[in-house]
């Protein structure tokens, strides 16, 4: 007789109960279900074993699903139970994983466990025993720099001991399987009273109480719990063992205060900041299969501008800047076109700000998307949250909606970059904008005053002028502080010649809004020091004021003080590092614009994307493998994308003179005319302004400074950077055959020196 419906249901119910009882982690799943796959992947990552059955592949699958609904009111898969407790579906289980609830369910803490052991035994004598064992364990840990609780037959214990011997690190170990009353170690004589009570098992219990680790080998170094074989090998590799045994000066000071380390961490690496440096470092770390999290959050500008993943370069730096520079160059080519035979292009020429912004922003958004997908496909966890330190290794994350959570990282890299400064005058944040706003500005900026003489100021002024907007530049003292000043003044000459107005010694004092609008009408009040020495106060009216007076690192709101790091205004709030590691905290690293790095050449800080990227990648390699390759901050090529571009590698003339002395250097230079400009009437006044120079160390003939002012200087300089890296001499440059006709070839034919006093004007074709 076929079983009745009731009997059927009962047997299904029993089957479900059996699955739930017999498996610590039970997943009722379906083979094609993506959420089932997601939660299984997450559990595998967390090294949590589970059992799952695929209901779509079972005859009774439907009935089981019905029974689950009866039991839990949940009709979907995955349906998950842990230690017989119903957790829920994918989201609820992920939540439980993250909050630690899963761990707690699978490994109930001490108090619960003690409770379990103590049945009918006399509590008093058990307590005394446990106390004695705990004391014994402490004695071992304190008296030995490297202490291994081991078992003689355990292969992992053997493995880690061999590794330590190879590394010539002395250790002390006791074999818990051989401990008991018949043990005859020398130390037995000393601790015989305690020993009489102690057995290997009890010591192992004491270790479990202390470290929540129930396996051997259980290893302590300088009283810090390291873990088992794998963790100790890892610590050996990463240099942590060496550091613990031989702490450098600053760490010794730090140790007196408090033991920073935690027993376990959510992540091997947390990177704060998803810009050029942060993304490169995090992805590189993944190639060592570390658990990595990247935090990225953009605090909106005073007028509300924000942007997506990728940092300054992608969103409000290099990328949109270069595209707008290109927009202005195209405008210039249109002027050139007449002499090349094109007709009417010039008359028809007009520029739409909104169309340019639309094209550029669409591209930037595609990059934001690409980076999100890239992080995901490389297995980097991404949190769109603002991170702040709560205590060593621990960060509080706050998302867009204000929701918070905490995460811990064994190593943390700060890559928060910087943001533009405001001058701290009335109306600055209310009515003024910075580069953060300019590249997505929803309205034509119109007549613009650029305040500042940084490369940002000059590049922005340059392309705004190039696309046809009236531009004035307010300079406090000199152009491009930190750069070669001869080159800086040539840039200034070029820009004034093509129509931009520079006002020197002019400092803004107040920004007033005359009329609201997009753009509105603004009045910028200023104080000007005249040539006579008098001070004049006046104002200039315009549509837009762009502040580009410098940038500061975004370290102020990280709560760095909670981990013992101070930053101050004197160096732009940057974090002091040596080889990208904090000089105060060994587990804290930093890369990119936010660092004050000891191994960088003094003077001009290298706030550049490629620098941050390479530093980040090399750092990840050093953190997670036995690489020792350090970042080389010397001979980093740079280019300023002003209307006439300026490329440089190595020393400025001022720095070379001060370091080597006038007698030890020779400077070769030449003006030249870019062939493409030679037939263009509209370039008449500027065509001889291209210029290049090489600074040579007389004693070695090595070229120590490379400078070129020319169209396409960026492309030119990149190629020569390879030569500089390989230590090229002036003779190497001379023996390199040029490509004709180019601007770049001029670097191969320099013969006139500054010291000769001869004219640097170009000869020949």
């Amino acid at each position, binding site marked *: 007789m076929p079983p009745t419906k009731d009997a059927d249901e009962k047997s299904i119910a029993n089957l479900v109960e059996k699955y739930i009882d017999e498996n610590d982690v039970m997943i009722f799943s379906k083979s094609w279900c*993506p*959420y089932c796959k997601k939660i299984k992947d997450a559990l595998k990552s967390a090294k949590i074993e589970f059992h799952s059955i695929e209901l779509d592949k079972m005859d009774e699958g439907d009935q089981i699903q019905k029974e689950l609904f009866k039991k839990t009111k949940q009709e979907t898969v995955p349906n998950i139970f842990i230690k017989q407790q119903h957790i829920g579906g994918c989201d609820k289980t992920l939540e439980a994983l993250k909050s630690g609830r899963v761990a707690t369910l699978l490994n109930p803490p001490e108090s619960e466990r003690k409770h379990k052991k103590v049945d009918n035994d006399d509590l008093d004598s058990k307590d005394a025993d446990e106390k004695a064992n705990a004391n014994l364990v402490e004695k071992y840990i304190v008296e030995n720099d490297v202490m291994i609780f081991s078992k003689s037959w355990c292969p992992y214990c053997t493995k880690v001991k061999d590794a330590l011997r190879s590394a010539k690190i002395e250790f002390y170990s006791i074999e818990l399987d051989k401990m008991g009353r018949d043990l005859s170690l020398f130390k037995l004589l000393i601790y015989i009273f305690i020993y009489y009570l102690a057995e290997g098992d009890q010591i192992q219990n004491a270790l479990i109480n202390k470290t929540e680790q129930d396996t051997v080998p259980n290893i302590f170094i300088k009283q810090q719990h390291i873990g088992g074989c794998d963790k100790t090998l890892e610590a050996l590799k990463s240099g942590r063992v060496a550091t613990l045994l031989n702490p450098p000066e600053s760490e010794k000071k730090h140790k007196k205060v408090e033991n920073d380390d935690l027993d376990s961490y959510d992540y091997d690496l947390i990177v704060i900041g998803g810009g050029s440096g942060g993304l490169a470092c995090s992805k590189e770390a993944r190639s060592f299969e570390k658990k990595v999290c990247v935090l990225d959050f953009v605090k909106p500008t005073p007028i509300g501008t924000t942007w997506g993943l990728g940092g300054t370069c992608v969103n409000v730096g290099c990328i949109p800047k270069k595209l707008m520079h290109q927009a202005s160059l195209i405008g210039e080519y249109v002027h050139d076109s007449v002499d090349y035979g094109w007709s009417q292009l010039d008359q028809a020429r007009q520029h739409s700000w909104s169309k340019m912004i639309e094209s550029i922003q669409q591209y930037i958004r595609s990059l934001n998307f690409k980076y999100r997908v890239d992080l995901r496909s490389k297995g980097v966890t991404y949190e769109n949250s603002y991170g702040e330190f709560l205590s060593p290794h621990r960060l509080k994350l706050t998302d867009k909606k204000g929701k918070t959570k905490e995460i811990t990282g064994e190593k943390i890299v700060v890559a928060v970059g910087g943001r533009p400064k405001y001058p701290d005058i009335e109306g600055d944040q209310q009515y003024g904008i910075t580069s953060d706003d300019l590249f997505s500005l929803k309205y034509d900026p119109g007549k613009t005053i650029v305040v500042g003489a940084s490369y940002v100021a000059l590049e922005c002024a340059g392309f705004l002028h190039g696309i046809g907007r009236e531009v004035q530049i307010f300079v406090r003292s000199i152009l491009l502080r930190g750069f070669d000043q001869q080159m800086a003044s040539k840039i200034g000459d070029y820009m004034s010649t093509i129509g931009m107005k520079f006002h020197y010694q002019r400092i803004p004092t107040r920004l007033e809004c005359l009329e609201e609008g997009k753009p509105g009408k603004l009045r910028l009040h200023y104080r000007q020091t005249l040539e006579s020495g008098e001070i004049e106060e006046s104002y200039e009216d315009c549509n837009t004021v762009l502040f580009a007076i410098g940038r500061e690192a975004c370290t102020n709101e990280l709560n760095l003080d909670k981990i013992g790091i101070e930053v101050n205004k004197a160096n732009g709030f940057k974090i002091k590092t040596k080889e990208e590691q904090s000089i105060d905290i060994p587990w804290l690293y930093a890369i990119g614009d936010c660092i004050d790095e000891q191994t960088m050449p003094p003077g001009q800080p290298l706030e550049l994307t490629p620098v941050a990227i390479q530093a980040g990648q090399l750092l990840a390699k050093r953190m997670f493998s036995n690489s020792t390759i350090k970042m080389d901050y010397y001979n980093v090529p740079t280019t300023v994308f002003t209307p006439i571009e300026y490329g440089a590698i190595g020393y400025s003339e001022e720095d070379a003179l001060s370091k080597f002395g006038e007698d030890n250097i020779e400077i070769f230079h030449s003006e030249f005319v870019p062939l493409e400009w030679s037939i263009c009437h509209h370039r008449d006044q500027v065509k001889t302004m291209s210029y290049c120079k090489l600074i040579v160390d007389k004693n070695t003939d090595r070229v120590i400074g490379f400078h070129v002012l020319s169209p396409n200087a960026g492309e030119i300089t990149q190629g020569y950077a390879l030569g500089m890296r390989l230590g090229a001499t002036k003779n190497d440059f001379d023996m390199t055959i040029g490509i004709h006709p180019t601007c770049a070839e001029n670097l191969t034919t320099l013969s006139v020196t500054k010291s000769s006093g001869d004219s640097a004007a170009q000869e020949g074709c």
Partner: protein
Amino acid sequence: MASCNKKLYINSYHELKNVIKKIEKDKRIFVFFSGAKDTQGYSWCQDCNAIEKPLNEIVASLLPSNGIFIECSVGDRASWKDSNCLFRKDSQLRLTNIPSLVEWGTSKRLTENQLYDPDMIQILFEDD
């Protein structure tokens, strides 16, 4: 959430362009490109068959409220492999492989194995 959105089934390039023209400007349009199905409902494209159920599940739960989901067939194998295929030649779309999920009017797209990952799809659906 997603329940109130119609799913649209499109079978040709021209039909796709016409339908999209008529959609309100404030909507975000997501188009899933796959190989044509036979009368049994199976496509000549194996990957497309495998992805269908999981993808529909994910889209059903993650599609934003202002999102429209369109399933568009690129035709039979021969039409798709032809370099003159209109989906390949469209200057904005430039479709190169199927199955693909694309946000129309942007360069954002996911293909093949990426489509099995709900987190990836979430990235595509996220508002800028």
